[in-house]
């Protein structure tokens, strides 16, 4: 597989560049956006893209480009935070459950497996409807559906690693459970979760945008790509292409960036993970 390394680096770099560009856009939104995203007098109503309004204007006379720029903040915040929450919870539960074993581990695995096979989006819809609109609420709705992914991965590896001789040796010299978990098992389990985390963010991006597209999860006062897409849908039959095109392109590019980052990392860290 000699020459393959080059391609994977290219994918990794392209992914990093995409993600980096959108992160920069989110951080420097105030400097990049020519208009206030809420400004309802930024230009004429529903005008197509042009020199003053790069991506046109919407039905409330707002500048679409400025809304795209500011919208990156919402989706990045929600999807990255959701992935962090679900990884922290899932990894901890997987480690403890796999290490402890026994009946509680069996029951927990069964529950996690059931959630894992259930369509994540439908669970997220139910959760988002239950929590009501809000940035923190939607973050938790998205986070909960990914906990089983980390749990299953980490538990499986913990089961394998705890049989290793060096864990046995640590126990023989009197190391406590916490020490064994933290010093001997955790470092050996964490490597693969990096890849899963990146791919998880990509998926969370699409779920976040799906929820807000469906009108769930966020109050109308937040600038968000999914909500703009839902609004643009109303004007699609009259051919107002810019309202649906740009938010969708951005969602896809952001998801693509994280996916490429994950795929590149996977090949470089562990060439056997994806190549079957």
């Amino acid at each position, binding site marked *: 597989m000699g020459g393959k390394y080059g391609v994977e680096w290219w994918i990794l770099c392209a992914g990093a560049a995409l993600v980096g560009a959108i992160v920069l856009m989110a951080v420097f939104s105030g400097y990049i956006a020519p208009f206030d995203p809420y400004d309802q007098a930024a230009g004429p109503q529903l005008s197509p893209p042009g020199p003053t309004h790069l991506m046109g204007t919407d039905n409330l006379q707002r500048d679409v480009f400025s809304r795209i720029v500011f919208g990156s903040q919402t989706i990045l915040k929600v999807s990255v935070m959701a992935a962090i929450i679900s990884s922290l919870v899932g990894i901890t539960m997987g480690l403890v459950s796999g290490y402890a074993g026994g009946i509680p581990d069996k029951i927990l695995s*069964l*529950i996690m*497996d*059931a*959630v894992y*096979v*259930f*369509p*994540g*989006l*439908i*669970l997220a*819809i*139910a*959760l988002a*409807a*239950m*929590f*009501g609109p809000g940035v923190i609420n939607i973050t938790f709705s998205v986070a909960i559906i990914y906990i089983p992914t980390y749990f299953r991965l980490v538990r499986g590896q913990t089961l394998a690693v705890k049989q290793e001789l060096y864990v046995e040796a640590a126990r023989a010299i009197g190391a406590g459970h916490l020490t064994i978990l933290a010093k001997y098992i955790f470092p050996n389990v964490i490597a693969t979760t990096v890849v899963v985390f990146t791919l998880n963010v*990509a998926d969370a991006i*699409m779920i976040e*945008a*799906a929820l807000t*597209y*469906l*009108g*769930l999860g966020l109050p109308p006062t937040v600038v968000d790509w999914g909500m703009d*897409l839902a609004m*643009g*849908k109303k004007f*699609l*039959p009259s*051919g107002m*292409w810019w309202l*649906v*095109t740009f*938010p*969708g392109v951005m*969602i*896809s590019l952001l*998801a*693509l960036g994280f*996916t*490429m980052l994950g*795929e590149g990392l996977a090949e470089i860290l562990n060439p056997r993970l994806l*190549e*079957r």
Partner: protein
Amino acid sequence: MGHLIRYIVARTLMTVPMVLILLTIIFAVLRLMPGDPVSAMLGGHAPEHVIELKREQLGLNRPLHVQYVDYLWSVCRFDLGDSMVLQQKVTDIIAEKLGATIELTVFGMLVTVVVGVFLGAYAADRRRTLGDSAIRLYGIVVYCIPVYWLGLMLQLVFGVWLDWLPIAGRTGPRVFPSDFERTGFYLVDTLLAGDTESFFDVLVHLVLPAFTLGLTLSGIFVRLTRANMLDVLKSDYILAAESRGIPRRRVVYRHALKNALIPILTMMGLQVALLMAGAVLTETTFSWPGMGRLLLERIYLRDYPTIQGVIIVFALMVAFISLVVDIVYAVVDPRIRY
């Protein structure tokens, strides 16, 4: 044969705890939903005693564990209660919408498999050529395109700009489903009724939603088929077949593809969740009168029993399809046994 039956029984029994857990999760999630369904239903200005009476009628004032047992028992009897919005049984409402969702997912899956398997096999055959790279790129990119956005773009191009295909609903304004509706699968119903005009109308309405759903999922199938085909093409019997002088095309698309398809079958089971989620989004985008659209409509109306019923049916469908896929897999591949 005895082993196979034992496997099927064991696998079916394993479905029971899974369904039970899913039902419990659904119950837990929906009972925690804020906003009292009764006052939402009565309009918020109802006097306290009316609300209390309604709560009693719906059994919402009983202790949670009683409600839980009652809930499980009703699901076992396929009784999902009455809608809070319309005086209709939830099972009747769902039965009305289920056909639309199944028709959409079946045709979506068809598009996925045909596109995914063909492109994947082609890419493996022409490994490391331009075509292979293009197909691999397609596999990654299409996976990252949200299904609802793909739907909107297809609507824009084929519905609005080219004006070739309709962008909403299952039938046009001049076709009345009540004329032919029997099974809920309109393609079947129109054929049974011998109504070719309506059949083509239904078919035309199905094209964009089915392609939207199918193309988004095809990325995964491209990658899987390609990876499996590469493994199979390396094996000895392929070399043997080629050295016997069987044409390459026949070796690749007959001998190799057949064997590469077995692992793909199991993946189909895992894709069911994605298929359902995709269907919910596609239905919303195309105003497709199925279960997904029903779910969202009822969430806005806070129609608890219907929301609960729809999610339960989705859960049962997932459990059932993964059971069927596993059994088919065991029949096809005799090595799969407990």
